[in-house]
């Protein structure tokens, strides 16, 4: 299973590989920040004083506060690093939730067909056509009332937004794979529906999911920050969230105070770009319309000393030209 998921990464070439590597590197830095947050930050994410001494308000970046402090007396460097933890937790949760729900629904819907299928397609299409941010706003509005806010409520309100994408892809591939010979063979030897879905269809249908997953991760982060920016996301005492911090910094930015806005802004931008690069790189290799495969090494049997060098030079280059 894992080799099936990781297969596309190995077969990348040229620009696609370069995009992938850059994306993985950027994302890796943020993962480190998220993991090491308690040890590399001078203060907790919602800490206004150190050893009983109140932090300064809107202090400019200095040796003591690397990124300065904001209008809520928070140390911005700490907020940015802790924010990575919040962002990655919410992303992982929401992508996992929507992936599991979307894939299962898509498999069942595509395999069973009939009215269930039609109804689900119709519902998800209607949701998909709707502005995702608006959907997330309405859901987080309701969920924060019901669950009392926090990271899980934020992740759940994003989940709903992304289910339709997995559903669509998986359902469509299932519909076309359902009539394939190997599925017919499985049915002929008496395999149960659940076995066909989990053993035969799942592996063949799930291949495009990692691409959607990474692209969604980028989008989910932007939506999460958007929610925070509009004031419907995670509250500042629950966790550090970049979008919220930027919203707080708006008025200061209008007045020319740049540091409360620019650091969380750069963090969002970098992580979104990192995740997008991974998605783009994968897409380039998985989408057959864009794919360029690495040339297979051809080893010619040596016939004479003169020709063996030519064969080696002709196959070493990984980046091929136009087909």
């Amino acid at each position, binding site marked *: 299973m894992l080799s099936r998921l990781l297969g596309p990464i190995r077969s990348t070439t*040229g*620009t696609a590989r370069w995009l992938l590597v850059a994306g993985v590197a950027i994302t890796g830095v943020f993962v480190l920040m998220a993991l090491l947050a308690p040890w590399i930050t001078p203060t907790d994410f919602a800490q206004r004083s150190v050893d009983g001494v109140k932090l300064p308000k809107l202090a400019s970046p200095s040796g003591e506060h690397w990124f300065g402090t904001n209008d809520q007396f928070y140390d911005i460097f700490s907020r940015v690093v802790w924010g990575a933890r919040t962002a990655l937790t919410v992303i992982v949760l929401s992508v996992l939730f929507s992936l599991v729900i979307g894939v299962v629904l898509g498999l069942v819907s595509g395999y069973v067909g009939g009215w269930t299928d039609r109804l689900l397609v*119709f*519902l998800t*299409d*209607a*949701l998909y*056509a*709707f*502005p*995702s*941010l*608006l959907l997330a*706003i*309405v*859901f987080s*509005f*309701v969920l924060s*009332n*019901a669950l009392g806010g926090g990271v899980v409520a934020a992740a759940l309100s994003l989940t709903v937004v992304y289910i339709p994408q997995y559903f669509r892809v998986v359902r469509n591939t299932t519909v076309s794979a359902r009539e394939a010979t190997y599925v017919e063979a499985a049915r002929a030897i008496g395999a149960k529906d659940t076995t066909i879905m989990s053993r035969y269809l799942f592996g063949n249908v799930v291949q495009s999911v990692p691409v959607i997953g990474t692209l969604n991760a*980028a989008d989910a982060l*932007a939506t999460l*920050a*958007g929610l925070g*920016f*509009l*004031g*419907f996301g995670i509250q500042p005492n629950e966790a550090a969230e970049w*979008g919220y911090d*930027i*919203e707080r*910094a*708006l008025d200061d*930015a*209008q007045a*020319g105070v*740049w540091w409360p*806005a*620019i650091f969380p*802004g*750069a963090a*969002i*931008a970098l992580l*979104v*770009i990192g995740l*997008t*690069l991974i998605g*783009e790189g994968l897409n380039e290799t998985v989408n057959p*319309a*864009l794919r360029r495969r690495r040339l297979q090494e051809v080893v010619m049997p040596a016939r004479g000393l003169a020709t063996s060098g030519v064969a080696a030079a002709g196959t070493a280059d990984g*980046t091929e030209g136009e087909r």
Partner: protein
Amino acid sequence: MASAAQGSLPRYVVQRLLLMIPMIWVVVTVVFLLLRVAPGDPVSASVGGRLSEEELDRRREALGIDRPLWQQYLEYLGDVARFRFGESLSDNRPITSIIIDNGGATLTLTLGAFLVALVIGIPLGLVAGRRRDSAADVGIRLFGITSYAVPVFVTGLVLVLLAGGTGWPTYDIASPITKFQVEPVTHILLVDALIAGDMGAVGDVLQHHVLPCLTLGLLLCGVFIRLVRVNLLMTMKGDYVEAARARGIPERYVVRRHAFRNALVPLITVLGLQVALTLAGAILTERTFNWPGLGTQLVDYLNARDYPAVQGLVTFFAVIVVVTSLIVDIVNALVDPRVRY
């Protein structure tokens, strides 16, 4: 496009129009149920604490939210079908007048953004697709990825900070004087200023449009670059391009005459799909620049827990998305003979 059956264009349009109704119905239902599931009723949430208990009960009765859910739901559906969206709770404004008063600002913002995106996005996309894997391609794609990936409010903030010292307007749709002087006729400030013939006001409004439109336009421009590039790559692989080459037509004519045009057709479809993205982007852009559009209104009413206003505005957004995608599909059917309806 859904069915391969033979049909005429008018029939296709009617089919699509009929399909629109269930789409909007789903969204209206989801929003209705969600807002009702949320704990706390709209009256005590929006004006509770400020009024006496009797007055609150009177308001609940007037709103009809003391009746069973299905009754309220059917009534709401009936109202929507007759284009009655009700009034806001917190300031008693009819939803239609919110849409008329504030819709103009959102309209000019989004149109300006599309203009920016087309002017920047299409040429860059064509260059990138033409010279695949060159330095220019990589650069343009990185620009596209960045401008799409970076949230609009971050782009907006950077522009605000850059404009900081120059005195260029970074706030609102016009200066207070312009807003005061221009008589509202169409409620689209730019048009009103033009009608009044006040060139100073027109200039002022246009200046205020630059940064927000650029912000939202950069987001869309990322989409366009990517799309035009990929489409060009696909059309360049087409048989007719190969055939043109085989006839000995010089490469630049092949690209310009045969590939470019066909690469641009799918753009129309995608323009339709981007309406949802644009509206979401507009909400964030409006918030960043304190733009008096529908997005700002929606956020304000959400914060005030004003359910009828939120419901009305969200329904309106849904209608806009569905209607524009319908129009785009029809235009697409007219332009592209390959589209079967």
